[in-house]
């Protein structure tokens, strides 16, 4: 009886298993196949090693640089914000989620449009600068504009996990630390910081990975002048029509994504582990 029930229940995930094989695993095999063959279909590593070509390398390094910058800015902005929000002792946490989710519900393109407006040569920032008697600044179509856009787009992904991990710290744990003689700084360094490491790590992953692989923000706010690795791959597929090269570079990008996640997780576990023992 019990056995029969169990058998039936597992069966329910059947459609999804088919889905996994057909639309998750198979596409990845496709990208591996294209990435490791040339246009004639014979095996090659050229598409992978193409990352060392100066133009590709430059794009990859710029992507890493901007993604790191964006992640750092998000972390610096989000951590104090999460602390302040947590200190408000809001009765409804969902309110916080609401406030920071709302801009994300706006279409990404329209959010980018807003920044185009703000940063353009005759946009609001430059108008304000002019009216103050200062010189105009070229903002749009620069790396800074891309970082601005990325921070705007990804900041909520940093705020929410940090805020969550912070709100899970019981007030009695903080009280206990104070009771044992810790002052405000010691409470922060010895209790709050270590207990929010996991939130910080998931925040970093959730910001760094999309920032590293983005191509839309750099395309629209960088005006084609800021070439990231995502843009290179997109152009290989949509303009040069060199799918093998595009797939090869995608594999490299995937490796970077996996490596950065593994690095963060390992680092997180190490931290957590050190704290446990």
């Amino acid at each position: 009886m019990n056995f029969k029930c169990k058998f039936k229940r597992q069966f329910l995930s059947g459609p999804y298993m088919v889905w996994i094989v057909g639309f998750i695993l198979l596409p990845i095999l496709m990208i591996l196949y294209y990435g490791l063959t040339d246009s004639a279909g014979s095996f090659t590593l050229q598409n992978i090693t193409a990352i060392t070509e100066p133009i590709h390398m430059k794009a990859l390094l710029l992507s890493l640089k901007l993604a790191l910058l964006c992640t750092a800015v998000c972390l610096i902005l989000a951590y104090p914000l999460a602390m302040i929000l947590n200190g408000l002792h809001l009765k409804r946490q969902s309110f916080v989620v609401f406030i920071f989710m709302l801009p994300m519900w706006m279409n990404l393109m329209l959010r980018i449009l807003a920044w185009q407006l703000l940063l353009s040569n005759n946009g609001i920032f430059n108008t304000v600068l002019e009216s103050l008697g200062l010189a105009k600044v070229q903002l749009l179509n620069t790396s800074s504009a891309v970082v601005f856009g990325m921070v705007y787009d990804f900041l909520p992904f940093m705020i929410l996990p940090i805020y969550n991990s912070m709100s899970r710290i019981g007030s009695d744990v903080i009280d206990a630390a104070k009771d044992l003689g810790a002052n405000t700084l010691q409470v922060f360094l010895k209790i709050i910081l270590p207990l929010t490491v996991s939130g910080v790590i998931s925040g970093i992953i959730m910001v760094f990975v999309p920032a590293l692989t983005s191509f839309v923000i750099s395309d629209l706010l960088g005006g084609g002048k800021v070439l990231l690795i995502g843009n290179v791959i997109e152009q290989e597929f949509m303009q040069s029509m060199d799918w093998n090269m595009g797939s090869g570079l995608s594999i490299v990008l995937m490796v970077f994504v996996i490596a950065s996640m593994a690095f963060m997780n390992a680092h997180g576990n190490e931290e957590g582990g050190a704290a446990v023992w």
Partner: protein
Amino acid sequence: MVKKISGRIYLSAIFLFLYFPILVLIVLSFNDSKSRVAWGGFTGKWYVSMFQNTAIMRAFATTIQITLTASVLATVIGTLAAIGIQAMRRRGKAILLGATNIPLLNADIVTGISMMLLFVRFTRLGFLTVLVAHLTFDIPYVILNVLPRLNATSKSAYEAALDLGATPLYAFYKIVWPDIRPGVFSGFLMAVTMSLDDFSITYFTKGAGVNTLSTMLYTELRKGIRPEMYALSTLLFGIALLLLLLINFRSARKNDIHN
């Protein structure tokens, strides 16, 4: 006291950073002048021309079709999958959950490209391929929202219902379903959010002729900014605000009843 005030200032600054760009779009959508900085009087003409713009309206319709179809199907497939996964042994569970994480963690651009490579080999790109692609990244969100709820559901209550003579289906509907319903609902909402906002994956799997709002706007933005887009922004922001308020109101009321 000083700490409190500086906290409030900081909070307001971030709030301004998040909402000022949106505010600018809303103000400009009612601006009679095409200028980005000068106020030329109040007008509703951009809204009129937005509704008359067939490209925008068609993209709008396609977005809604894709989003709703993908979210509903993903909710059904994902919920069933979660129930199945929960009944599995550790090994099978780990493998399936690992596969579920791939579309969530992989870069959107890689997911999009890999699916495009698969689709062009076996079929033509179009509405259907976009739908399949959306389902692929929607289902994991449903599973990850339903599974924790399922795990928290008391197994003994379900078994007690069977013991009292309920059929498995009736017991599921009466005992398990009420417990997992919030998870199913939030999974559905996540799927809607992800589908509405997706650009990269749609972009690579759509082919010519099919456009969602995201891909349509991308092409348009590369050409230049048109004031109808301000009107569209305001409209979409209004819809998002309304929907989120509705959801929040619902859950807030539920909490109040609980307390």
